[in-house]
């Protein structure tokens, strides 16, 4: 008897991994919440110095890229290979733009003397130091996830191109998509917590 690829098993495996990611970022958000309640004033002041426009732009970019990936997963099942490839390429490009924005954002802050263990943060208010420490750790870890997600999207793109991912067998594309959506999901919480504090 020929063995069938276990598509739902692969998806369950991916979700089990995503649960650990949720707990990982959940833990960091708890840390944020505890220090937020302790240094409310400092967090408010520090949040105001972040560029809301870049934060908003990156939110829209990630939301759109998530849509593009979801469309690619639909397209592969409808045997519309071209749309699937376009969706994946678009999402990867969005990821790249996101990282370029992040580069300028971090660069701007580092130039202003705000980076982990910098003179300005160490000698400044403790809450401000905590805020930017968490800012660099959480957005940095999220950035690493963007890079991993882009790698998965590119691998999926190549496999679709080569016909290894088809309407019969698309678990790789679907799981890469799930990972990308999770990265988007985490950003949905990062954006208000860091950029929109009044």
């Amino acid at each position, binding site marked *: 008897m020929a063995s*069938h*690829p276990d*598509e*739902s098993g692969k*998806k*369950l495996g991916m*979700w*089990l991994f995503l*649960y650990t990611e*949720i*707990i990982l970022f*959940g*833990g960091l958000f*708890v840390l944020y*919440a*505890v220090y*937020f*309640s302790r240094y409310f004033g400092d967090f408010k002041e520090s949040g105001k110095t972040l560029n*809301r426009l870049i934060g*908003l732009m990156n*939110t*829209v970019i990630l*939301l*759109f890229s*998530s*849509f593009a*990936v*979801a*469309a690619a*997963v*639909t397209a592969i*099942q*409808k045997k519309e290979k071209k749309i699937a490839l376009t969706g994946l390429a678009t999402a990867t490009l969005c990821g790249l733009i996101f990282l370029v924005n992040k580069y300028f954002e971090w660069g701007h802050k580092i130039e202003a003397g705000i980076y982990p263990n910098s003179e300005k943060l160490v000698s400044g208010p403790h809450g401000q130091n905590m805020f930017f420490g968490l800012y660099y750790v959480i957005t940095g870890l999220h950035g690493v996830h963007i890079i991993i997600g882009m790698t998965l999207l590119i691998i999926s793109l190549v496999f679709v191109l080569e016909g290894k991912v088809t*309407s*019969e*067998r698309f678990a790789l594309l679907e799981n890469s*998509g*799930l990972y990308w*959506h*999770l990265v*988007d*999901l985490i950003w*949905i*919480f990062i*954006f*208000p*917590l860091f950029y*929109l*504090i*009044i």
Partner: protein
Amino acid sequence: MEKTHHSHYLEYRTLFSIFLLLLMFTGITVGVSYIDLGVFNVWISLLIASVKGSLVLLFFMHMKYEGRALIFSFLGTIFFLFIMISFTFWDVSFR
């Protein structure tokens, strides 16, 4: 045999409407952040983020159409996340 691959997918139009909804909620959360409501700002922005997250989860991540194994294991994860958050605050608030 038929169950080896399910082929339920969402139409492009549905996915695009979800994207538009997500944009709308992003606009709302930015708009609300300019109104000073004190501590309520935090709760409102978290509420909107949860709504946006649910949209991504249910439609983009297809959770609305999954079987029990995924739905219950996901809810289990959220439950443990809830325990982690509430016990941490229980500790921090009554120290």
